[in-house]
């Protein structure tokens, strides 16, 4: 799509050269063919090192743009960005793609639906009511139980087990908010990557990234009813017990253990080998690895036990 088409969709003027744009991305991850955006003054320093050539930007940030950039000046960059994402959103179904390629000894139930463009490895089992979206790839020996939905463009590794009712790759919960209190959809044009040997319990929801990928790394085991938001990066061999939730863009290192009903805020980084007891509420990044934590607000597990002892004495 041409940059001028983006401008006319937004009903705004563009400055600089008219470029071919293939997708959108965040400021620091953009390639020269991607459209990016800068909302806030704090991005001024990142702008100078950006590789992107096309920007949605506020007038106050124009002076920080790299030389020869093309740009659109927006009153509200986050709202214009949301409207622009719609232009790069792909339709759920693309009948013109090639029929699915299915490996040897794989079993696909007649009540399952596999869209075009899909690649399925060998010895895969796909059970009744499963839905495998456009361009999805599934590795060898993976088992997909009934009524699992995998949205388009997602990637599932080999030796995975996905239990019934799981949804992988639904839209992340991302909106720009108008002054009138309305919520403008930011189309979620990324995907989900599940690496090898991951097991996911029944009725989990793992959302697709807004740009790039939500990643579940190899060997991670996830129980039932777990929510993993867009752009999360879950490290190798983590354990998630039932009903936990992870906010958007949060990163966990390898071998974290997250007990039942715990939850993480968005945009935090958790060191490897961290353990969280049941009902933990994690709102800040954890830099030191190997800790054990409890409670909400979160504290060291030992402190939490001391605190509970004190609290139980308060009633005497």
């Amino acid at each position, binding site marked *: 799509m041409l940059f001028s088409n983006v401008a006319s969709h937004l009903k705004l003027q563009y400055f600089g050269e008219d470029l071919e744009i293939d997708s959108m991305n965040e400021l620091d991850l953009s390639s020269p063919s991607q459209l990016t955006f800068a909302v806030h003054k704090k991005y001024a320093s990142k702008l100078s090192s950006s590789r992107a050539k096309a920007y949605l930007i506020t007038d106050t940030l124009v002076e920080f743009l790299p030389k020869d950039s093309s740009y659109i000046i927006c009153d509200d960059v986050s709202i214009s960005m949301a409207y622009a994402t719609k232009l790069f959103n792909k339709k759920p179904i693309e009948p013109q793609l090639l029929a699915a390629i299915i490996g040897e000894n794989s079993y696909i139930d007649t009540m399952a639906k596999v869209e075009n463009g899909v690649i399925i490895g060998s010895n895969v089992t796909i059970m009744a009511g499963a*839905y495998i979206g456009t361009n999805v790839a599934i590795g060898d020996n993976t088992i997909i139980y009934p009524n699992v*939905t995998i949205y388009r463009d997602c990637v599932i590794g080999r030796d995975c087990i996905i239990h019934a009712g799981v949804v992988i790759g639904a839209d992340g919960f991302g*909106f720009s908010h108008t002054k009138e209190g309305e919520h403008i959809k930011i189309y979620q044009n990324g995907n989900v990557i599940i690496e090898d040997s991951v097991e996911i319990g029944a009725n*989990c929801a793992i959302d697709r990234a807004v740009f790039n990928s939500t990643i579940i790394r190899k060997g991670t085991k996830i129980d039932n009813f777990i929510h993993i938001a867009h752009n999360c990066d879950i490290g190798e061999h983590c354990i998630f017990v039932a009903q936990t939730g992870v906010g958007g863009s949060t990163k966990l290192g390898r071998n974290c253990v997250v007990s039942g009903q715990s939850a993480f805020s968005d945009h935090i980084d958790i060191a490897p080998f961290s353990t969280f007891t049941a009902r933990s509420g994690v709102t800040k990044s954890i830099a030191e690895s190997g800790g054990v934590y409890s409670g909400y607000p979160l504290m060291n597990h030992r402190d939490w036990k001391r605190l509970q002892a004190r609290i139980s004495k308060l009633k005497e």
Partner: protein
Amino acid sequence: MDLKECAKIINSDFEGISFEVTGMNTLKDASKSEISFVSNSKYIKDIQSSNAGAIIVDKSTKEFVPKGCVALVVESPYWEMATLSKHFAPPIEDDTLAEPKIGEGTIVSPKAEIARGALIGKNCTIMAHVYIGANAVIGDNTIIYPSVTIYRDCRVGSNCIIHANTTIGSDGFGFATNRLGEHRKIYQNGNVVVEDNVEIGSSTTIDRAAFGTTLIKHGVRIDNLVQVGHNCIIGEHSVLVAQAGISGSTTMGRNVVMGGQSATAGHLSIAPFTTMAARSGVTKSINQSGLTFAGFPLVEHKIWLKLQAKIARLIK
């Protein structure tokens, strides 16, 4: 069904003129042809203003039933209301209804199931394994992702997005309990109405009303794994973040934000522009609009912060 028959089902001594009963409803909403009930003395004041044609009461409440309204006297009105509700439950599927009507430009997967009596608007996408129940109505331009179930009589507006595996209109969690501790199902004969421009995440459940409607107003955004109980009203442009739970009959004004894993008790009223932080537990109605709350028990967010600081000092 004839009122005489209804009286017989619940073993009530029937006095007065019989009429054709069209359904059951609350005291407030019942019409002349409907049966209502009083199971709690706090509703006695509502009897006088009720338009119900007949009311199930116990001996002590009989005297409050006005002239022209039939009193059906039983030992335990709530239990007998449950007994009778079964007889007003419509069939799950109904062969006597017309073939479903599907608007121009709408794509329906051959693996989706549309029950008789359903109406689907223009330019919708209905993907594989979707079930749309009898008499359900879907507006224009709505996308329904795989394995979504919409139960009979429910309505979804235009420009909505319903993500995979979400269930709209399953039975609300309503039972009458007798002295032996047994639970009898209260058939949930109401519906769910989702207005225009609503997005609902994956594996979310919105239960149908016992009587009347569970209502999601326009512009609402609901994340994954959210539970909305029967007879709730969610105000315009409200936001329900992942794993939030709204108990039955709770009403929210516009632009309420419920953080992740937050929850409300039943029968509350939440003022517009209220924000609940993650994990909030709301047990009382909020009358003043525009405030932010946190914690369980719920307090204003700034007080919660102070309280947590004091608690942290307990172990110093």
